[in-house]
């Protein structure tokens, strides 16, 4: 299934450069939005539901996610593109299940991490962003978190690239670190777009910090720092378990896995790529 398409790939320099530009713009938009929100927050939220912050959070993060999708998707091989819907369904099915359980975990990115490990950071980022957009057809409240989901996919791909999925105990560690970054980036969205809530379980933790007199953004960030690293550690461990359970014949079909030796062990014999 990994065999290359028989026709030669079109080598259109201009199109490649345009896509790279879209990716960079997308990443820059997400970064600039986050910096703006952190710098301007104290003045805004005290005066009622901060409307400029909400607009910036929604617009900047969504624009960044869309640019990433349009830039990355056409560069992926078809074998990766057809896996993305599978990953999205896994995200949604498991995420919906956890959302109703009341636990302060989400577990809504198993599929994203799986793709990132098999196909690399760019595919992971596009999958994360697409996951939020497609999921919003059933649950619109996940739409603004597209940038955070893209970041998780990207970081998971980077972890796989540098061999953190070769040993089972390293996967949760990289998940923990990813969770810290993703939590800090997603907190402004939960704060400014939804007034600091993304579920009953997490709401209880936020109100505990509010009771101690924290500002809303600080409380939500602290909640995210409690929930997200644990959540992502579990997700990375599950994804690692799934990848290890797949036969090597399947996993080594992905060029990313072969090129960066993502998984321990040798390539199956009889394959000359």
């Amino acid at each position: 299934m990994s065999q290359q398409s028989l026709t030669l790939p079109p080598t259109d320099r201009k199109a490649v450069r345009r896509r790279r530009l879209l990716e960079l713009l997308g990443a820059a938009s997400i970064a600039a939005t986050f910096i703006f929100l952190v710098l301007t927050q104290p003045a805004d939220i005290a005066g009622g539901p901060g409307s400029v912050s909400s607009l910036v959070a929604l617009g900047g993060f969504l624009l960044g996610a869309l640019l990433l999708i349009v830039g990355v998707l056409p560069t992926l091989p078809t074998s990766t593109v057809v896996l993305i819907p599978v990953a999205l369904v896994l995200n949604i099915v498991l995420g919906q299940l956890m959302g109703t359980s009341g636990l302060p975990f989400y577990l809504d990115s198993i599929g994203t991490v799986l793709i990132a490990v098999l196909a690399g950071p760019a595919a992971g980022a596009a999958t994360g962003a697409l996951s939020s957009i497609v999921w919003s057809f059933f649950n619109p409240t996940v739409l603004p978190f597209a940038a955070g989901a893209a970041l998780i996919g990207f970081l998971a791909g980077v972890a796989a690239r540098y061999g953190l999925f070769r040993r089972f105990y390293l996967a949760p560690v990289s998940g923990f670190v990813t969770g810290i970054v993703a939590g800090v980036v997603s907190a402004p969205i939960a704060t400014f777009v939804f007034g600091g809530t993304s579920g009953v379980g997490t709401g209880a933790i936020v109100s505990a910090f509010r009771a101690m007199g924290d500002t809303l953004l600080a409380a939500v960030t602290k909640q995210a720092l409690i929930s997200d690293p644990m959540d992502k550690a579990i997700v990375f461990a599950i994804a690692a378990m799934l990848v290890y359970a797949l036969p090597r014949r399947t996993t080594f079909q992905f060029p990313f896995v072969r090129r960066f030796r993502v998984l321990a062990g040798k390539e199956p014999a009889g394959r000359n790529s």
Partner: protein
Amino acid sequence: MAARLNPLTALTAAAAVLVITTAASSWAVSLTVAVGAVLLAAAAGIVRRVLLAAAVIVVPFWLSLLVIHGLFFPEGRTALASWGPARVTAEGLTFALEMGLRTAAFVLVLMVFSFSVRIPELVAALTARRVPPQVGYVLASTLLLAPLVAARLDKVRQAQESRGLVVGRGIGSRLAAIRLQMVPLVLGLVHDAGIRAQSLDARGFRSTGPRTSFTQVRDSAAQATFRVFAILLALAAVGWRIAESLPAGSLSAWFLSGAGGG
């Protein structure tokens, strides 16, 4: 009614309404938008499905908002009641109400769009706009795949049960059961995806250039005008909100100095 609209028109309208609601940020506007979305759903005959799906999302959300802001709002001054550290303040309740209504409007508007849009038409409209075909494929494929995956999970469970899978009480047994179902499910799905990739490639999925579509999407000059108008209106709302948020007088001072300098 929605069937005759171009899906891009519906999408633009939904996005513009959401931007304007967020920019206005007042409970009255949010309430109007939410009620309007419900009326629109009623006119399209999908009001029950929309309300049910929205309630599942919005009700836990409201409860959470009420717990966070109703009980603890350190910025609040007018205390209505207090038990120990918890203090019910008028400001906190107002904040919760405003956020709750805005979120309800957000969810309802997008729900009306996603429940009334026809996915094949949306995909065809996006492809006609030169959006990469992979975006349309992922969108349509996910929505078609979801029920298939659920059915497949059921089959895997049945197969494992017939092999003697019994889910015990302990957490270890539960995790083992999840693993026994997850691994065959994911393996089968990854394998299927490979076969699908081959047949897609054989049919020129990655070829660039013009594409034709079986699905004809209606469009009209009036709808195109409406889309431009809606985008301009949304931009105006954002501009107004940003101008409003600048320190009072700074804008007119800048304007005057600019006029004087010129």
